[in-house]
């Protein structure tokens, strides 16, 4: 339990298992969209319940687990000291998996807060915040004990993510008020009264992405990309601008989910301006990474982790161009409420964050376990399955969403426009199967690496991470 990098290793391994569970839930939900009588009448597998399982497991038990794992790997490496307490880290890892198990049991049972991305009921919320604070403490103590004086940009992002997420999560869940919606199977839930509640909900709904997932992902890319290509970061000034503008602008944008609700106009204006302002942190980050890659682009063919990370930055680019445009009133009228938004959400969480998570874990696993990846070719197959599956999913959802939105603007009712969505629902379910298969390959590959991967001596560990494909 006190072994070096055991926290990181255990978080990554559990994340690799959880993504399978989240994938099964997502696949069931996608099939139910295309064939509504499939598994019909089984309460725990009903779409509205299984969707919550899919979203929460993918957010918190897959991507977030890799994030925790990456934080407790990157920060000690950059600080030149071991993690402050591997024991504390491992306890937080166990608690985090308790969160996952509780979520996977309560959500299908209908215990939910009825808040998007914050479905987990109040007792689980408390656990989530405890785990976040444990990791914050661990990381801060590690940084304070550092031998390396200079603070690399990844440490800024890691610290900021762990500082901000407990606050974002508490506000979004109205965590001090566990009293409402306590009828039927629904559990204790925090909320405000009146439409103010949705303002808080969507403040959280967007900042869990911006201030947690983006922060953590950017920290990983800033760390791994220069390391793999053995080239210094292009500009520290750009990363500085990107860091502060990310916190400033992202905190504003939550209300762009509510542009056509009866809520105060100034919030909508701030949200649209903030969404436009996001171009600053996004392009400073992407410019920085892509300029760092100058002369080394060919290396994405030589290194599997780099391939995942760089393809992730491309999808990040697409996400962050779509996002601000979606927040403009004119375009929002077309795409709001449609499957376009579902496609966009997958672009962010699957195309970007999951790709970065996969890139990070394929680097960290060999180094931590001191074993070569069992089958780089299988990793390559996984890359193409996931890429292909993701692209089909995004395209079917977003094309379908435009058709849906166009039909509504034309004056069709929702029900009348539904049959034209069917082909896209089928395509989406198919893409989900590809993705699921890809993640199964990942689990198998990591398992075999752990068991029978070719051992390497410590000095060669970093070289081993640059998996030839």
């Amino acid at each position: 339990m006190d072994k070096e990098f055991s926290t990181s290793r255990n978080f990554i391994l559990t994340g690799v298992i959880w993504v399978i569970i989240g994938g099964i839930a997502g696949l069931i939900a996608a099939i139910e969209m295309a064939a509504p009588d499939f598994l019909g009448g089984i309460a725990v597998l009903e779409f509205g319940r299984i969707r919550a399982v899919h979203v929460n497991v993918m957010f918190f038990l897959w991507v977030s687990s890799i994030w925790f794992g990456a934080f407790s790997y990157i920060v000690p490496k950059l600080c030149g000291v071991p993690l402050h307490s591997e024991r504390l880290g491992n306890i937080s890892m166990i608690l985090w998996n308790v969160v996952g198990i509780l979520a996977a049991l309560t959500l299908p049972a209908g215990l939910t807060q009825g808040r998007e991305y914050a479905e987990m009921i109040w007792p689980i919320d408390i656990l989530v915040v405890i785990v976040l604070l444990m990791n914050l403490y661990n990381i801060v103590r590690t940084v304070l004990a550092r031998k390396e004086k200079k603070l690399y940009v990844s440490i800024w992002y890691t610290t900021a993510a762990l500082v901000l997420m407990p606050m974002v999560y508490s506000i979004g869940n109205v965590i001090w008020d566990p009293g409402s919606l306590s009828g039927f199977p629904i559990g204790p839930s925090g909320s405000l009264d009146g439409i103010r509640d949705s303002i808080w909900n969507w403040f959280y709904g967007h900042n869990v992405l911006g201030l947690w997932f983006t922060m953590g992902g950017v920290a990983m890319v800033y760390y791994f990309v220069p390391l793999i290509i053995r080239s210094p970061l292009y500009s520290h000034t750009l990363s500085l601008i990107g860091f502060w503008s990310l916190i400033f602008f992202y905190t504003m944008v939550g209300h762009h989910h509510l542009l056509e609700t009866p809520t105060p106009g100034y919030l909508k204006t701030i949200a649209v301006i903030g969404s436009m302002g996001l171009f600053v942190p996004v392009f400073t980050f992407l410019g920085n990474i892509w300029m760092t890659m100058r002369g080394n682009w060919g290396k994405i063919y030589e290194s599997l982790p780099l391939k995942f990370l760089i393809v992730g930055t491309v999808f990040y680019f697409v996400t962050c161009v779509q996002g601000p445009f979606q927040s403009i009133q004119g375009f929002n009228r077309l795409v709001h409420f449609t499957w376009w938004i579902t496609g966009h959400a997958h672009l962010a969480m699957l195309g970007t964050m999951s790709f970065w998570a996969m890139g990070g874990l394929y680097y960290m696993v060999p180094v931590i376990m001191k074993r070569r990846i069992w089958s780089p070719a299988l990793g390559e197959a996984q890359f193409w399955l996931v890429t292909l599956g993701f692209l089909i999913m995004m395209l079917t959802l977003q094309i379908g969403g435009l058709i849906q939105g166009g039909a509504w603007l034309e004056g069709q009712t929702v029900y009348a426009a539904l049959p034209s969505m069917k082909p896209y629902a089928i395509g989406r379910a198919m893409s989900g199967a590809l993705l699921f298969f890809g993640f199964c390959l990942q689990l198998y590959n990591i398992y075999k690496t752990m068991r029978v991967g070719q051992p390497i001596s410590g000095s060669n560990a970093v070289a081993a991470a640059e998996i030839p494909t």
Partner: protein
Amino acid sequence: MATIVENITKGMSEAVDGLKRRRFVLRMDYPTIFFGTITVFLGVVFVVVAMPALTFHVDPSPDARPLTAQEEHGRSIYASNGCWYCHSQYIRPQDWTGVKSFETLGRVAQAGDFAYQKTMLLGSERTGPDLSQEAGAHSDDWHIAHFQNPRYTSMKSIMPEFKFFAPDELNDTIAYVQSLGGKPGVARAQKQREVKSALLAIRAQGEPTRTLQIESMYNPTWANVTNPMPPSPRSLTHGKYIFVTNCIGCHGVLGDGKGPSAQYLQPQPFNFTTAQQQSILSDGQMYHAILLGQEGTAMPAWGDFLTVNDIWDLTNFLRTIPGSSLTSDPTYEMWQATEATVAKNPQNPAKNPFQTEFGKVNEGSYYNGNDIGPGLGGSTINPNNNTAPGATDINKGDYPANNGASPNNPPQNQSTPKP
């Protein structure tokens, strides 16, 4: 003058030199990162979260009403099952929500509508229809059938089945859905219930009264409206397609009002298979009933989903159902299931394709009107006649005769249900 310009130029160049000397440096030491992050975040949070929470208090709108205990319970079931992932609960200025909003005029949501609610269920997607004005748009019975299997009433729906609801859960959920829309919504739902009991009372007295009653429900001018669409093969084929893809959940594939949802509905769905029944409604009244629905019954306003053309073609088609008054017209062909259709439904031991478990039957048979419509799509066409049915013109009288099926001699593989 020259001195002034000189001085200004000098001053400016000095200022630029000064800026050049002072390099812009932000030292990123750890306290700066830690507390700077918190400061920037809390500054923005104050503006976008704290201020609205402190200042944005809205009085209840005139329509807003607190939910009853039963409705609150229904609301928690609604939240529990994630209904809000697909059903939004606010109408935007640009939304056209269909004919059912005749009474609500597509009422755009106001902040005060939500005054009595805790935990917003506004929704972020609209895979299903917006429900903010749903109360009274459908009858309670419609909801019972619809929750059992949404395809029973709405064949294109992709909503999950909720047959796992316990009876009280079902009732409470329906009570909640019938409260969406505030005070006017509750009034609409109440009117549905009142008309329903009035209709049932009248029907209990026998058919003649019922006829009178139905006639009196429509504006008299509708009774004299005739169908402007000639009953051409195109019109009948299209009407059949509309019927098969929208109506058979309640009215049955035979048009006898015995679709799978009929068991949940009172009054029973309209039976098109007898002349006596068909004569109750003129073409105009039938059009009216389809366009705007029939209050007090499960018949919704199909004007939400069908065009004028669709409804007139459907009205034409409904007159071709066997036993209806107009089938004595030799230019029409009878509504009859083909052997092929019957054979297509292996799950049905009785070889009657229309009484099987609805949701489980070969879906193709529902969407392929050619298999189960009357005549036009090749049901009982004389095999010796090679003319493609769609190519004939029934108005010229060269449409192939059917195999002896007539009002007096109904097809043998079909039972004639009692109205």
